């Protein structure tokens, strides 16, 4: 069982998206003597957020090779705003394949809440595994290590040896690929996984799942970052909400900057102090000040759904 060492509230008043999303950072003990840093994003305890307090399902996010977790802040804030606890482990050298056990450690962390810090607020039995690029490839390898509720790949091509594991995975799984992704070609993924498990996003590059920017040498018309992010979050949200996901997705005409979340753009400054230093915190302190009221659990699906496709 991973054991926490400490946690800090790192909520930024502005936030990456301005969403009512709170952030925390934990350090948890892994491999007996190492520490794993976990970035957490979750719905803030705020009526304005539109997300009711309750017991939220969780997401473990695995970043692409060498990409800092902070590069995904925009996407992670969106997912959290939909009513999920999102944990992003800091892998060794920001590379998931150096530490494939990290995902399982995070699930164990959710299921064995440290000193009551997360108890009643995270549903450790409903954890979605999500990974971008190499993180998605590693996700396909570790999919059987814990009972994941969903598996979402973003611009990822699983290794051939892992495709049987994917086929045997009984819960929903899907791959979202940009048509301007020069690193992972959509045609290759469709050929490997089948079209029913793949959604292509028009003009989206590999990098736009993360911080974005750059160009796409294999596409004459890559989407701008705002358009790409809109496409990504709209389709990913449909998958996370168990709504139908189309095989191909194009930008909405004249609405390229739609965030898809009614609560986004609001001020997150009213997020409560989240996690006192867990090394010193008593369970009562932690559960009282850190997270939404566990006694008022409501299905997270009641979250604002303004961006559902």
């Amino acid at each position, binding site marked *: 069982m991973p054991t926490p060492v400490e946690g800090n509230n790192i909520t930024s008043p502005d936030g990456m998206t301005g969403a009512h999303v709170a952030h925390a950072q934990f350090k948890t003990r892994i491999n*007996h*003597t190492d*520490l794993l840093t976990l970035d957490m994003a979750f719905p803030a305890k705020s009526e304005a957020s539109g997300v009711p307090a309750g017991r939220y399902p969780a997401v473990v996010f695995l970043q692409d090779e060498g990409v*800092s977790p902070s590069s995904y802040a925009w996407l992670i804030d969106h997912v959290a705003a939909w009513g999920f606890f999102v944990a992003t482990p800091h892998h*060794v050298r920001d590379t998931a394949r150096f530490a494939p056990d990290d995902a399982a450690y995070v699930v164990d962390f959710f299921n064995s809440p440290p000193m009551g810090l997360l108890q009643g607020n995270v549903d450790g039995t409903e954890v979605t595994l999500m990974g971008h690029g190499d993180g998605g490839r590693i996700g396909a390898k570790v999919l059987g290590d814990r009972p994941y509720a969903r598996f979402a790949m973003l611009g990822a091509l699983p290794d051939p040896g892992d495709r049987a594991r994917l086929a045997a995975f009984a819960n929903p799984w899907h791959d979202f690929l940009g048509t301007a992704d020069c690193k992972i070609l959509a045609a290759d993924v469709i050929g490997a996984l089948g079209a029913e498990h793949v959604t292509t996003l028009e003009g989206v590059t590999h990098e736009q799942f993360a911080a974005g920017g750059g160009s796409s040498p294999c596409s004459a018309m890559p989407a701008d970052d705002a358009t790409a992010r809109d496409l990504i979050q709209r389709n990913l949200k449909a998958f996370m909400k168990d709504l139908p996901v189309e095989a191909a997705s194009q930008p909405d005409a004249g609405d390229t900057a739609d965030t898809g979340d009614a609560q986004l753009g609001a001020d997150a400054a009213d997020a409560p102090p989240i996690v006192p230093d867990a090394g010193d915190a008593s369970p009562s302190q932690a559960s009282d000040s850190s997270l939404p009221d566990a006694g008022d659990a409501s299905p997270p699906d009641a979250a604002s759904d303004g961006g559902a496709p």
Partner: protein
Amino acid sequence: MTSLRRSWAGLIVMAAASWAASSLRVPVACASPSDVVGRAAEQSTATLHYGQGFYAPTYGLGLEMAVAPQRSAAVDWELSPASGVLTPRASYHVQLTAPRLVTVAATFGVTMALVYRGPLNAGFGPRVGLGVAIGREWLRLDLGAQAGGELFVHEIGPRAPVRAVSTLRTSVAGFTAGVTVRAGYDFELDRYTLPRFEALAFIGTSAFDER
């Protein structure tokens, strides 16, 4: 005992001077007489912090003593403040061949890991090593391999670290300095193999040796 007292005196001096020190010796370390060594290490675990833009060093203090011809014993303590782990070790070194340009040696030892940051934990286990020293005292290259097993109070393990070790060291006028690189894997049941890399510099002295 005179030698022991003098050597411990050396330890105190170095600790007071806040030296980063340790005697996590490579398997052929017994070629030296008793000495006090130091190091500032960049532990493999520190790479966990790479994405945050910094490395977390470890610090240690150590002592090695000749206990018989071609035999020596060593103890050391290594501290990783960032990880909150204190690692005491004890080793017994045996030269398997007479000291020449090429010398073969073996190491037997035990390792503890005391986790003090967060919930307390402790681990313990044996380790062995085999190595070859090439060169003379003033300039020597040590090449070796180490393996061990560790059991922990929480999540028993066992964890089996396996490492290749390389050290380049020089000794002049009773002082020793060198650089060690260790690389390998940790093996553990129901876990993926975990790559480890460690680079460290050490400095020591045999000035307190009575010979």
